[in-house]
């Protein structure tokens, strides 16, 4: 059945027999605000507009569940194309789809399988879309694989909230999986704690010290990092490493294996090489289904605390006390170390002057002498520093005070 004709199919008698059992009558524990009956069914089937971000493992599950539940107007964004390693769980894709955009193929599949549902795909980045785009939805559901994208989406939805317009508050459901484990949470921007509030709960990514990689490798992973971090740029110059290119992985594997042999280290394999350079997280269909449905066999629920000093939803500058001898360079190091901010290359400025900018090169050069200066020479006590970084989806305000 083509999507053209499927949109013409009307709901048939009995189609919603199952879901109607919980929509027709409230249960003992349904929220008092839940108005069972035709109103809720009409909203769900004819009015609600849902955005799904990510058409990967979780996205496929979410799309199918939404369609069967009766939602008719679903949008999906994904910037990736289909890889063969997706097929063990992303069940809307087939071998013949490898290389095609995930969003487009997923949307078409759902429309073919579930008559009357309209799924509008966008093959691209969430950052391509503006506030007006996000304002059209009733709910945003994320099945993302990166912290960066989640932070951007979270910050965007928090900033969207206009206290004068209740409709501007878009609930966000965020899920993630890793192997047999996973999590899901609901964020009501500005009301509940947001993604940024609990950023410090994330595990720090495994990073091997560069001196270990360069001088004292002990594990096969150290040899692989040596090949990708040090040898690749040395041998290939500016040529970008593509971790999806089997030739590139093959090269890294060979180089890592040679280094391992030199140091008598065992265990460098193709699979490990790929795992380390792509930072692969194991993934299976069953976990995605559970998270899309909600939690796991050994599940627990807890409430995240809303942080008043959250740089996204706290609405205030973050207070920071440093030594009056602290240099700009040291302040940057402190910021990089902070688990609750998670930035890589911050640029600093005040409302009147640039302190240090990472880019463009001319400005970097012009502001570089400031690195050695004391912050106290540039910012008065109680003054604010604006921190920006490419990994930071918003600008962070620091209110600086100095230790006595």
């Amino acid at each position, binding site marked *: 059945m083509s999507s053209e004709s499927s949109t013409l*199919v009307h709901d048939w*008698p009995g189609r919603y027999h199952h879901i109607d059992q919980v929509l027709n009558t409230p249960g003992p524990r349904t929220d008092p605000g839940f108005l069972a009956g035709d109103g809720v069914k009409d909203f769900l089937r004819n009015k609600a507009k849902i955005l799904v971000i990510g058409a990967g493992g979780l996205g496929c599950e979410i799309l199918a569940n939404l369609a069967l539940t009766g939602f008719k107007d679903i949008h999906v964004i994904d910037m990736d194309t289909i890889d063969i390693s997706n097929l063990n769980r992303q069940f809307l894709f087939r071998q013949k789809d490898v290389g095609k955009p995930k969003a487009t193929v997923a949307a078409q599949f759902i429309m073919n399988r579930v008559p009357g549902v309209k799924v509008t795909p966008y093959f691209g980045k969430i950052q391509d879309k503006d506030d007006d785009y996000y304002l059209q939805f009733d709910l945003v559901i994320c099945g993302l694989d990166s912290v960066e994208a989640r932070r951007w989406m979270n910050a965007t939805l928090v900033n969207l909230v206009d206290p004068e317009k209740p409709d501007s508050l878009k609930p966000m459901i965020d899920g993630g999986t890793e192997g047999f484990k996973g999590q899901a949470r609901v964020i009501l921007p500005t009301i509940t704690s947001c993604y940024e509030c609990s950023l410090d709960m994330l595990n720090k990514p495994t990073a091997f010290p560069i001196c270990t990689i360069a001088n004292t490798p002990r594990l096969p992973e150290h040899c692989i990092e040596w090949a990708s971090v040090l040898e690749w740029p040395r041998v290939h110059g500016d040529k970008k490493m593509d971790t999806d290119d089997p030739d590139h992985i093959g090269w890294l*594997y*060979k*180089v890592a294996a040679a280094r391992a042999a030199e140091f008598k280290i065992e265990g460098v394999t193709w699979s490990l090489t790929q795992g380390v350079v792509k930072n692969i997280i194991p993934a299976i*269909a069953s976990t995605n*289904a559970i998270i899309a449905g*909600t939690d*796991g066999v050994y*599940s627990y629920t807890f409430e995240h605390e809303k942080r008043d000093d959250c740089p996204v939803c706290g609405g205030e500058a973050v207070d920071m006390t440093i030594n009056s001898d602290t240099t700009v360079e040291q302040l940057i190091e402190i910021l990089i170390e902070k688990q609750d901010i998670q930035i890589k290359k911050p640029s600093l400025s005040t409302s009147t002057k640039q302190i240090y900018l990472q880019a463009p090169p001319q400005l970097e050069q012009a502001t570089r002498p400031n690195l050695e200066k004391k912050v106290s020479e540039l910012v008065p006590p109680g003054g604010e520093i604006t921190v920006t970084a490419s990994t930071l989806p918003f600008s962070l305000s620091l209110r600086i005070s100095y230790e006595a």
Partner: protein
Amino acid sequence: MSTVEATTTALVTESAPDNKTRRYDRQLRLWAASGQSALENARILVVSGGATATSILKNLVLPGVGHFTILDPLPVTPEDAGNNFFLDGLNSVGKSRAEEGVRLLLEMNDGVDGKADTRSLEEVLDTPGGKEWLGEFTLVIAVNLEKGPLERLAAVLWEEESFPPLVVVRPAGFLAEFYIQYHEHTVIESHPETAQSLQIDRPFPALLDYAMSLDFENMDVTDHGHVPYVVILVRVLEEWKKTHDGLPPQNAAEKVQFKKNILAMRKKPDEENFEEAEAQAYRAWTKTVVPSETRALFDDAKVISPSSVEAPFYKLVRALKKFVEGSGALPLTSTLPDMKASTSAYIDLQKLYKTRAEEEKEVFRGCLSEACGGDIKAIGEDMIDAFVKNSHALKLLRGKRWAALDEDHEALVLATQTSSKQLAVHLALSALSNFLAKSKTSGQTLSAEALTAEAQKLLPDGTELPEEFEDCVGEVVRSPTAELPNTAALLGGLVAQEAIKMITRQYVPINGYCIVDLVETWTGIL
């Protein structure tokens, strides 16, 4: 070609992975080739082709289960077409639910074999040879079966220990439960979170000699900063014991002193290996023990009395018991965690552990040979290796017959105290099942009162229903036959995940009921 590349081409043998390995890459990282092979050799029977059943199968077909059969005599109804993703809308209505489900599930993976069987379960059970037919599956999953046929199926599969485990799945709206019926389930590769002990408190001779042979005082400064913490701890502990009647630190004060002794050895204040040794100092005074769960295995009746038809697991445990009696601890680990060290110091230490682990494995093989009457070939090297590596995390689960809980008054009364909210859901679902079986003849209509009366009958006289029961029964009454897409998806994930654990004999499956409440979003074990 760079020099590195030129020198390596000769020694690298592994080439780019084939398509199958690439397709399954993300799961092979969880259960490895051995788990994948078990999955590909498995044959699954699913009784019913409804939305929950196909959701479960989806998560078994995608990772590549060998074969599945859907047993379902019913045609697709318009209601099925509305809630089952593995039906083609109105096009499927009137066709066989089993055949349509199999067709659309197989689209996802060419490597899987699937079969639709349009007989009813009763027909299978009544056919001569039906029992044997069931017995040939690796696992049977029954979704939403009526009480009568379900009890017959469960009883048949319980008859022989060699018959497949049975997973019983019962959804009703936002509530659900599933249960795995098995006699016993043994796991060697349980994928524990904790690593095997490095046995620093009882260093093997070569390690002790090595630690004592180092001349820390006159060592080159760089080398000094790269001695692995394991070696430092062995050395400090040995020196300590000399002045403390051969005992490790006994109390808080001694432990503090022990740590001071470690730090006093530093040549520079920033030697990270000594800081690491201080942080890991507890390993020096933590006695290496056989975990109580493993020890309990040694006293298991099946371990004590060998039988001619027993699983290799029991022979291996018997050999382990013998080994522990001889050496006082489990076989030494051959895996060293990463630690601050130079490459050579780390590799040397790794070699010491590996050599010793090999020696201990040989001793273990001797014990095993004794336990097997000389022939250990049948067990296989891979299993022996895996067993030795996981000897600190072996699992033996003994299960119960389906519905045994509902007949065990003592357990039910206890559950009203300890797991009341899980029990409440279970009682509501059991009451529904009992009620539906009776209402066929009585014609009674479903109500909260009728279900409450059924549930009360399940409990011994004088025992009150849990206070959460009222909410559960209300939920069941409003949606007694609903298979909601979200509940089906969740159960599809949970049941498939447990099925994979059972099939691969990796990770630890549940033992009991898994209860699901999607109104309050929790799952629990009963």
